[in-house]
Protein backbone atom coordinates (compact mmCIF):
# COMPACT_ATOMS: atom_id res chain seq x y z
CA UNK A 1 0.00 0.00 0.00
CA UNK A 2 2.84 2.35 0.90
CA UNK A 3 4.56 1.77 -2.40
CA UNK A 4 1.26 2.42 -4.18
CA UNK A 5 0.84 5.80 -2.46
CA UNK A 6 4.49 6.61 -3.05
CA UNK A 7 4.21 5.83 -6.76
CA UNK A 8 0.82 7.34 -7.57
CA UNK A 9 -0.10 9.86 -4.90
CA UNK A 10 3.27 11.25 -3.92
CA UNK A 11 2.41 14.70 -2.58
CA UNK A 12 6.00 15.98 -2.72
CA UNK A 13 6.38 15.11 -6.37
CA UNK A 14 2.94 16.49 -7.17
CA UNK A 15 3.88 19.77 -5.48
CA UNK A 16 7.17 19.95 -7.37
CA UNK A 17 5.49 19.35 -10.70
CA UNK A 18 2.67 21.80 -10.02
CA UNK A 19 4.16 24.83 -11.86
CA UNK A 20 4.80 22.69 -14.94
CA UNK A 21 1.28 21.30 -14.72
CA UNK A 22 -0.23 24.74 -14.45
CA UNK A 23 1.54 25.97 -17.57
CA UNK A 24 0.31 22.80 -19.28
CA UNK A 25 -3.21 23.46 -18.08
CA UNK A 26 -3.02 26.97 -19.52
CA UNK A 27 -2.07 25.55 -22.92
CA UNK A 28 -4.88 22.99 -22.67
CA UNK A 29 -7.38 25.76 -21.94
CA UNK A 30 -6.11 27.82 -24.87
CA UNK A 31 -6.44 24.80 -27.16
CA UNK A 32 -9.93 24.06 -25.86
CA UNK A 33 -11.20 27.57 -26.37
CA UNK A 34 -9.84 27.72 -29.93
CA UNK A 35 -11.10 24.28 -30.92
CA UNK A 36 -14.52 24.58 -29.24
CA UNK A 37 -15.25 28.05 -30.59
CA UNK A 38 -14.15 27.26 -34.14
CA UNK A 39 -15.87 23.86 -34.00
CA UNK A 40 -19.17 25.38 -32.92
CA UNK A 41 -19.06 27.93 -35.74
CA UNK A 42 -17.74 25.55 -38.41
CA UNK A 43 -20.21 22.86 -37.41
CA UNK A 44 -23.12 25.27 -37.83
CA UNK A 45 -22.10 26.05 -41.40
CA UNK A 46 -21.68 22.37 -42.23
CA UNK A 47 -25.11 21.63 -40.75
CA UNK A 48 -26.69 24.45 -42.76
CA UNK A 49 -25.04 23.04 -45.87
CA UNK A 50 -26.59 19.73 -44.99
CA UNK A 51 -30.06 21.30 -44.83
CA UNK A 52 -29.58 23.28 -48.03
CA UNK A 53 -31.92 23.02 -51.01
CA UNK A 54 -28.96 22.78 -53.34
CA UNK A 55 -28.07 19.16 -53.87
CA UNK A 56 -24.32 19.66 -54.44
CA UNK A 57 -24.04 21.56 -51.15
CA UNK A 58 -25.84 18.76 -49.33
CA UNK A 59 -23.54 16.18 -50.86
CA UNK A 60 -20.41 18.10 -49.94
CA UNK A 61 -21.45 18.52 -46.35
CA UNK A 62 -22.48 14.88 -45.96
CA UNK A 63 -19.18 13.75 -47.46
CA UNK A 64 -17.35 16.12 -45.10
CA UNK A 65 -19.07 14.86 -41.95
CA UNK A 66 -18.76 11.20 -42.86
CA UNK A 67 -15.12 11.51 -43.87
CA UNK A 68 -14.02 13.27 -40.69
CA UNK A 69 -16.14 11.12 -38.42
CA UNK A 70 -14.57 8.00 -39.93
CA UNK A 71 -10.97 9.11 -39.38
CA UNK A 72 -9.52 8.82 -35.88
CA UNK A 73 -8.54 12.35 -34.74
CA UNK A 74 -5.01 11.17 -33.93
CA UNK A 75 -4.57 9.95 -37.51
CA UNK A 76 -5.69 13.33 -38.83
CA UNK A 77 -3.34 15.06 -36.44
CA UNK A 78 -0.32 12.94 -37.42
CA UNK A 79 -1.16 13.33 -41.10
CA UNK A 80 -1.28 17.11 -40.82
CA UNK A 81 1.70 17.44 -38.51
CA UNK A 82 4.03 14.79 -39.99
CA UNK A 83 2.65 14.35 -43.52
CA UNK A 84 2.06 17.86 -44.83
CA UNK A 85 5.69 19.01 -44.35
CA UNK A 86 6.51 16.55 -47.16
CA UNK A 87 4.42 18.76 -49.41
CA UNK A 88 6.29 21.81 -48.19
CA UNK A 89 3.55 22.88 -45.78
CA UNK A 90 5.03 23.38 -42.32
CA UNK A 91 2.59 23.88 -39.50
CA UNK A 92 3.38 24.58 -35.86
CA UNK A 93 2.13 21.94 -33.40
CA UNK A 94 -0.49 24.31 -32.00
CA UNK A 95 -2.07 25.02 -35.39
CA UNK A 96 -1.76 21.39 -36.45
CA UNK A 97 -3.85 20.45 -33.41
CA UNK A 98 -6.37 23.23 -34.00
CA UNK A 99 -6.82 22.30 -37.68
CA UNK A 100 -7.00 18.53 -37.10
CA UNK A 101 -9.50 18.78 -34.26
CA UNK A 102 -11.51 21.47 -36.02
CA UNK A 103 -12.05 19.11 -38.96
CA UNK A 104 -13.05 16.35 -36.52
CA UNK A 105 -15.21 18.39 -34.19
CA UNK A 106 -17.02 20.50 -36.69
CA UNK A 107 -18.37 17.30 -38.23
CA UNK A 108 -19.54 16.04 -34.84
CA UNK A 109 -21.05 19.39 -33.93
CA UNK A 110 -22.67 19.52 -37.39
CA UNK A 111 -24.50 16.25 -36.74
CA UNK A 112 -25.77 17.61 -33.42
CA UNK A 113 -26.95 20.87 -35.00
CA UNK A 114 -28.61 18.92 -37.78
CA UNK A 115 -30.64 16.89 -35.29
CA UNK A 116 -31.62 20.18 -33.64
CA UNK A 117 -32.60 21.87 -36.89
CA UNK A 118 -34.73 18.87 -37.90
CA UNK A 119 -36.49 18.99 -34.53
CA UNK A 120 -37.88 22.47 -35.27
CA UNK A 121 -41.20 22.13 -37.08
CA UNK A 122 -41.37 23.33 -40.66
CA UNK A 123 -44.33 25.57 -39.84
CA UNK A 124 -42.00 27.74 -37.77
CA UNK A 125 -39.93 28.53 -40.87
CA UNK A 126 -43.03 29.28 -42.92
CA UNK A 127 -44.62 31.41 -40.21
CA UNK A 128 -41.45 33.42 -39.64
CA UNK A 129 -40.86 34.01 -43.34
CA UNK A 130 -44.47 34.95 -43.97
CA UNK A 131 -44.14 37.73 -41.37
CA UNK A 132 -41.43 39.18 -43.62
CA UNK A 133 -38.29 37.92 -41.86
CA UNK A 134 -35.42 37.07 -44.17
CA UNK A 135 -33.87 33.59 -44.19
CA UNK A 136 -30.98 34.73 -42.01
CA UNK A 137 -33.32 36.48 -39.57
CA UNK A 138 -35.59 33.44 -39.39
CA UNK A 139 -32.61 31.27 -38.66
CA UNK A 140 -31.06 33.56 -36.06
CA UNK A 141 -34.19 34.62 -34.19
CA UNK A 142 -36.64 31.77 -34.60
CA UNK A 143 -35.14 28.45 -35.61
CA UNK A 144 -31.65 28.35 -34.08
CA UNK A 145 -32.63 29.25 -30.50
CA UNK A 146 -35.14 26.39 -30.44
CA UNK A 147 -32.81 23.98 -32.24
CA UNK A 148 -29.95 24.66 -29.85
CA UNK A 149 -32.19 24.30 -26.80
CA UNK A 150 -33.37 20.92 -28.06
CA UNK A 151 -29.87 19.53 -28.47
CA UNK A 152 -28.12 21.27 -25.58
CA UNK A 153 -27.18 17.99 -23.82
CA UNK A 154 -25.56 16.65 -26.99
CA UNK A 155 -23.70 19.90 -27.61
CA UNK A 156 -22.44 19.73 -24.05
CA UNK A 157 -21.38 16.09 -24.21
CA UNK A 158 -19.60 16.76 -27.48
CA UNK A 159 -17.76 19.63 -25.81
CA UNK A 160 -16.60 17.27 -23.05
CA UNK A 161 -15.19 15.05 -25.80
CA UNK A 162 -13.33 18.01 -27.29
CA UNK A 163 -11.62 18.79 -24.00
CA UNK A 164 -10.60 15.14 -23.63
CA UNK A 165 -9.39 15.15 -27.21
CA UNK A 166 -6.88 17.93 -26.60
CA UNK A 167 -4.81 15.42 -24.58
CA UNK A 168 -3.82 13.85 -27.92
CA UNK A 169 -1.75 16.96 -28.61
CA UNK A 170 0.84 15.45 -26.25
CA UNK A 171 1.65 12.90 -28.96
CA UNK A 172 3.14 15.65 -31.15
CA UNK A 173 4.96 17.22 -28.18
CA UNK A 174 2.73 20.23 -27.70
CA UNK A 175 3.30 21.13 -24.06
CA UNK A 176 -0.24 20.86 -22.82
CA UNK A 177 -1.38 19.26 -19.57
CA UNK A 178 -0.76 15.62 -20.44
CA UNK A 179 2.54 16.24 -22.22
CA UNK A 180 3.91 18.15 -19.24
CA UNK A 181 2.70 15.42 -16.88
CA UNK A 182 4.52 12.84 -19.01
CA UNK A 183 7.68 14.99 -18.90
CA UNK A 184 7.46 15.25 -15.12
CA UNK A 185 6.95 11.49 -14.93
CA UNK A 186 10.03 10.68 -16.98
CA UNK A 187 12.17 13.07 -14.92
CA UNK A 188 10.98 11.79 -11.53
CA UNK A 189 10.40 8.14 -12.48
CA UNK A 190 7.11 8.43 -10.64
CA UNK A 191 3.56 8.30 -11.98
CA UNK A 192 2.17 10.88 -9.55
CA UNK A 193 2.27 13.74 -12.11
CA UNK A 194 0.11 11.65 -14.45
CA UNK A 195 -2.34 11.05 -11.60
CA UNK A 196 -2.33 14.77 -10.89
CA UNK A 197 -3.14 15.42 -14.57
CA UNK A 198 -5.99 12.91 -14.32
CA UNK A 199 -7.29 14.72 -11.23
CA UNK A 200 -7.16 18.08 -13.02
CA UNK A 201 -9.12 16.62 -15.97
CA UNK A 202 -11.66 15.26 -13.49
CA UNK A 203 -12.06 18.64 -11.79
CA UNK A 204 -12.62 20.25 -15.20
CA UNK A 205 -14.94 17.64 -16.65
CA UNK A 206 -16.80 15.85 -13.87
CA UNK A 207 -19.26 18.73 -13.36
CA UNK A 208 -19.95 18.80 -17.09
CA UNK A 209 -20.50 15.04 -17.21
CA UNK A 210 -22.95 15.30 -14.28
CA UNK A 211 -24.74 18.11 -16.09
CA UNK A 212 -25.06 16.00 -19.24
CA UNK A 213 -26.59 13.13 -17.24
CA UNK A 214 -28.93 15.56 -15.50
CA UNK A 215 -30.14 17.00 -18.81
CA UNK A 216 -30.63 13.56 -20.31
CA UNK A 217 -32.67 12.41 -17.35
CA UNK A 218 -34.86 15.50 -17.61
CA UNK A 219 -35.43 14.94 -21.30
CA UNK A 220 -36.27 11.27 -20.72
CA UNK A 221 -38.78 12.09 -17.97
Amino acid at each position, binding site marked *: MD*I*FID*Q*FFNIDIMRQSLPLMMSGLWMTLKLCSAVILLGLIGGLFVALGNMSERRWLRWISIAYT*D*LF*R*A*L*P*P*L*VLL*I*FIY*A*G*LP*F*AGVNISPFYAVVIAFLLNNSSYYAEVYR*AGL*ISVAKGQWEAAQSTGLSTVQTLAHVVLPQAIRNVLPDLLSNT*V*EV*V*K*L*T*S*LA*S*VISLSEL*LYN*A*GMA*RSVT*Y*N*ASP*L*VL*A*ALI*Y*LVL*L*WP*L*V*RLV*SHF*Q*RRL*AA
Partner: protein
Amino acid sequence: MDRFLETFLNPVVMAQYTPDIIAGIWVTLQIAAAVIVAGILAGLALACLRSYGVKTLNFFIICYADIFRALPPLVVILILYFGFPSIGIQLSGPMVLFLVLAATLAAFAEEIFWAGFSSVEKGQWEAGIATGLGFTRTLTYVALPQAVRLAIPPLVNRVLAITKMTALGSAIGVSEILSSATTAQSFSGSATPLTMSVAAYLVIFLPMVVFARWLESRTAWKKR
Protein backbone atom coordinates in the same frame (compact mmCIF):
# COMPACT_ATOMS: atom_id res chain seq x y z
CA MET B 1 1.24 17.48 -59.19
CA ASP B 2 3.88 14.86 -59.95
CA ARG B 3 5.78 15.76 -56.83
CA PHE B 4 2.61 15.50 -54.83
CA LEU B 5 1.87 12.02 -56.13
CA GLU B 6 5.49 11.03 -55.59
CA THR B 7 5.28 12.12 -51.95
CA PHE B 8 1.85 10.92 -50.92
CA LEU B 9 1.06 8.09 -53.32
CA ASN B 10 4.41 6.58 -54.21
CA PRO B 11 3.72 3.11 -55.70
CA VAL B 12 7.11 1.68 -54.76
CA VAL B 13 6.72 2.67 -51.10
CA MET B 14 3.16 1.41 -51.17
CA ALA B 15 4.16 -2.01 -52.42
CA GLN B 16 6.94 -2.23 -49.87
CA TYR B 17 4.85 -1.37 -46.82
CA THR B 18 1.50 -2.91 -47.69
CA PRO B 19 2.23 -6.07 -45.63
CA ASP B 20 3.05 -3.92 -42.55
CA ILE B 21 -0.12 -1.90 -42.89
CA ILE B 22 -2.19 -5.07 -43.35
CA ALA B 23 -0.62 -6.53 -40.20
CA GLY B 24 -1.58 -3.27 -38.47
CA ILE B 25 -5.16 -3.54 -39.71
CA TRP B 26 -5.33 -7.03 -38.23
CA VAL B 27 -4.11 -5.81 -34.82
CA THR B 28 -6.57 -2.90 -34.90
CA LEU B 29 -9.48 -5.19 -35.77
CA GLN B 30 -8.65 -7.72 -33.06
CA ILE B 31 -8.34 -5.11 -30.31
CA ALA B 32 -11.45 -3.29 -31.55
CA ALA B 33 -13.52 -6.49 -31.51
CA ALA B 34 -12.38 -7.39 -28.00
CA VAL B 35 -13.11 -3.84 -26.78
CA ILE B 36 -16.59 -3.82 -28.30
CA VAL B 37 -17.64 -7.17 -26.82
CA ALA B 38 -16.14 -6.61 -23.36
CA GLY B 39 -17.22 -2.96 -23.12
CA ILE B 40 -20.83 -3.52 -24.13
CA LEU B 41 -21.28 -6.60 -21.93
CA ALA B 42 -19.72 -4.89 -18.92
CA GLY B 43 -21.83 -1.78 -19.48
CA LEU B 44 -25.00 -3.83 -19.79
CA ALA B 45 -24.15 -5.80 -16.64
CA LEU B 46 -23.56 -2.57 -14.71
CA ALA B 47 -26.85 -1.06 -15.92
CA CYS B 48 -28.72 -4.24 -14.90
CA LEU B 49 -27.08 -4.22 -11.47
CA ARG B 50 -28.00 -0.56 -11.10
CA SER B 51 -31.67 -1.29 -11.74
CA TYR B 52 -31.83 -3.38 -8.53
CA GLY B 53 -31.52 -0.09 -6.66
CA VAL B 54 -28.94 -1.03 -4.03
CA LYS B 55 -27.79 2.38 -2.76
CA THR B 56 -24.10 1.78 -1.97
CA LEU B 57 -23.60 -0.31 -5.10
CA ASN B 58 -25.23 2.34 -7.27
CA PHE B 59 -23.02 5.00 -5.76
CA PHE B 60 -19.95 3.10 -6.98
CA ILE B 61 -21.46 2.39 -10.39
CA ILE B 62 -22.31 6.05 -10.91
CA CYS B 63 -18.84 7.16 -9.77
CA TYR B 64 -17.23 4.67 -12.13
CA ALA B 65 -19.34 5.78 -15.08
CA ASP B 66 -18.69 9.45 -14.33
CA ILE B 67 -14.95 9.08 -13.93
CA PHE B 68 -14.46 7.06 -17.09
CA ARG B 69 -16.64 9.44 -19.07
CA ALA B 70 -14.66 12.43 -17.79
CA LEU B 71 -11.08 11.13 -18.10
CA PRO B 72 -9.25 11.31 -21.42
CA PRO B 73 -8.39 7.65 -22.24
CA LEU B 74 -4.82 8.58 -23.12
CA VAL B 75 -4.18 9.68 -19.51
CA VAL B 76 -5.37 6.34 -18.15
CA ILE B 77 -3.35 4.50 -20.80
CA LEU B 78 -0.16 6.29 -19.76
CA ILE B 79 -0.80 5.66 -16.04
CA LEU B 80 -1.33 1.94 -16.62
CA TYR B 81 1.53 1.57 -19.06
CA PHE B 82 4.18 3.66 -17.35
CA GLY B 83 3.01 3.73 -13.75
CA PHE B 84 1.91 0.20 -12.96
CA PRO B 85 5.25 -1.54 -13.61
CA SER B 86 6.69 0.31 -10.60
CA ILE B 87 4.20 -1.43 -8.31
CA GLY B 88 4.97 -4.76 -9.92
CA ILE B 89 2.14 -4.93 -12.45
CA GLN B 90 3.53 -5.31 -15.94
CA LEU B 91 0.92 -5.12 -18.66
CA SER B 92 1.64 -5.36 -22.38
CA GLY B 93 0.77 -2.46 -24.67
CA PRO B 94 -2.16 -4.21 -26.37
CA MET B 95 -3.49 -5.30 -22.95
CA VAL B 96 -3.38 -1.73 -21.61
CA LEU B 97 -5.10 -0.43 -24.73
CA PHE B 98 -7.80 -3.11 -24.47
CA LEU B 99 -8.41 -2.57 -20.75
CA VAL B 100 -8.67 1.21 -20.95
CA LEU B 101 -10.86 1.35 -24.05
CA ALA B 102 -13.14 -1.43 -22.76
CA ALA B 103 -13.47 0.35 -19.40
CA THR B 104 -14.30 3.61 -21.19
CA LEU B 105 -16.86 1.96 -23.44
CA ALA B 106 -18.38 0.18 -20.42
CA ALA B 107 -18.90 3.54 -18.68
CA PHE B 108 -20.69 5.07 -21.68
CA ALA B 109 -22.65 1.88 -22.39
CA GLU B 110 -23.82 1.74 -18.77
CA GLU B 111 -25.23 5.27 -19.06
CA ILE B 112 -26.88 4.51 -22.41
CA PHE B 113 -28.50 1.26 -21.21
CA TRP B 114 -29.52 2.92 -17.96
CA ALA B 115 -31.26 5.67 -19.93
CA GLY B 116 -33.05 2.86 -21.77
CA PHE B 117 -34.14 1.21 -18.51
CA SER B 118 -35.31 4.54 -17.10
CA SER B 119 -37.52 5.12 -20.12
CA VAL B 120 -39.49 1.90 -19.48
CA GLU B 121 -42.69 2.96 -17.77
CA LYS B 122 -43.12 2.16 -14.12
CA GLY B 123 -46.41 0.41 -14.89
CA GLN B 124 -44.61 -2.19 -16.97
CA TRP B 125 -42.33 -3.11 -14.08
CA GLU B 126 -45.35 -3.34 -11.78
CA ALA B 127 -47.31 -5.39 -14.28
CA GLY B 128 -44.39 -7.78 -14.76
CA ILE B 129 -43.95 -8.30 -11.05
CA ALA B 130 -47.72 -8.57 -10.49
CA THR B 131 -47.96 -11.47 -12.96
CA GLY B 132 -45.43 -13.29 -10.79
CA LEU B 133 -42.37 -12.88 -12.99
CA GLY B 134 -40.26 -11.52 -10.16
CA PHE B 135 -37.82 -8.64 -10.51
CA THR B 136 -35.03 -10.45 -12.34
CA ARG B 137 -37.31 -11.97 -14.95
CA THR B 138 -39.20 -8.69 -15.43
CA LEU B 139 -35.80 -7.10 -16.00
CA THR B 140 -34.72 -9.68 -18.57
CA TYR B 141 -37.97 -10.22 -20.45
CA VAL B 142 -39.78 -6.89 -20.19
CA ALA B 143 -37.33 -4.06 -19.60
CA LEU B 144 -34.19 -5.33 -21.32
CA PRO B 145 -35.57 -5.76 -24.86
CA GLN B 146 -37.00 -2.25 -24.82
CA ALA B 147 -33.85 -0.74 -23.31
CA VAL B 148 -31.61 -2.45 -25.85
CA ARG B 149 -33.72 -1.23 -28.76
CA LEU B 150 -33.53 2.36 -27.50
CA ALA B 151 -29.83 2.04 -26.81
CA ILE B 152 -28.71 0.86 -30.23
CA PRO B 153 -28.36 4.15 -32.15
CA PRO B 154 -26.42 6.05 -29.46
CA LEU B 155 -24.44 2.92 -28.68
CA VAL B 156 -23.34 2.50 -32.30
CA ASN B 157 -22.07 6.08 -32.34
CA ARG B 158 -20.17 5.56 -29.10
CA VAL B 159 -18.71 2.24 -30.23
CA LEU B 160 -17.49 3.98 -33.36
CA ALA B 161 -15.85 6.81 -31.42
CA ILE B 162 -14.13 4.41 -29.02
CA THR B 163 -12.91 1.85 -31.55
CA LYS B 164 -11.32 4.73 -33.46
CA MET B 165 -9.29 5.35 -30.30
CA THR B 166 -7.32 2.14 -30.96
CA ALA B 167 -5.06 4.61 -32.79
CA LEU B 168 -3.93 5.75 -29.32
CA GLY B 169 -2.03 2.45 -29.16
CA SER B 170 0.65 4.12 -31.27
CA ALA B 171 1.58 6.16 -28.18
CA ILE B 172 2.55 3.00 -26.27
CA GLY B 173 4.06 0.98 -29.10
CA VAL B 174 1.10 -1.21 -30.04
CA SER B 175 1.73 -2.04 -33.69
CA GLU B 176 -1.72 -1.12 -34.97
CA ILE B 177 -2.39 0.78 -38.21
CA LEU B 178 -1.17 4.21 -37.18
CA SER B 179 2.05 3.05 -35.56
CA SER B 180 2.89 0.74 -38.49
CA ALA B 181 2.39 3.77 -40.71
CA THR B 182 4.52 6.17 -38.69
CA THR B 183 7.29 3.56 -38.45
CA ALA B 184 7.12 3.01 -42.21
CA GLN B 185 7.11 6.76 -42.74
CA SER B 186 10.33 7.27 -40.80
CA PHE B 187 12.05 4.35 -42.54
CA SER B 188 10.99 5.32 -46.04
CA GLY B 189 11.23 9.08 -45.64
CA SER B 190 7.97 9.33 -47.53
CA ALA B 191 4.50 10.45 -46.50
CA THR B 192 2.94 7.60 -48.49
CA PRO B 193 2.52 5.22 -45.50
CA LEU B 194 0.49 7.94 -43.75
CA THR B 195 -1.79 8.18 -46.76
CA MET B 196 -2.11 4.39 -46.63
CA SER B 197 -3.13 4.53 -42.97
CA VAL B 198 -5.77 7.16 -43.78
CA ALA B 199 -7.09 4.90 -46.53
CA ALA B 200 -7.09 1.88 -44.19
CA TYR B 201 -9.10 3.73 -41.53
CA LEU B 202 -11.56 4.95 -44.13
CA VAL B 203 -12.07 1.41 -45.43
CA ILE B 204 -12.78 0.16 -41.91
CA PHE B 205 -14.78 3.03 -40.46
CA LEU B 206 -16.58 4.72 -43.34
CA PRO B 207 -19.05 1.81 -43.72
CA MET B 208 -19.70 2.01 -39.97
CA VAL B 209 -20.36 5.76 -40.16
CA VAL B 210 -22.75 5.28 -43.05
CA PHE B 211 -24.46 2.45 -41.16
CA ALA B 212 -24.82 4.66 -38.07
CA ARG B 213 -26.34 7.43 -40.19
CA TRP B 214 -28.81 4.98 -41.74
CA LEU B 215 -29.72 3.62 -38.31
CA GLU B 216 -30.34 7.12 -36.98
CA SER B 217 -32.46 8.20 -39.90
CA ARG B 218 -34.56 5.05 -39.48
CA THR B 219 -35.25 5.65 -35.80
CA ALA B 220 -35.89 9.34 -36.45
CA TRP B 221 -38.58 8.35 -38.93
CA LYS B 222 -40.24 6.04 -36.46
CA LYS B 223 -40.60 8.81 -33.90
CA ARG B 224 -42.83 10.85 -36.20
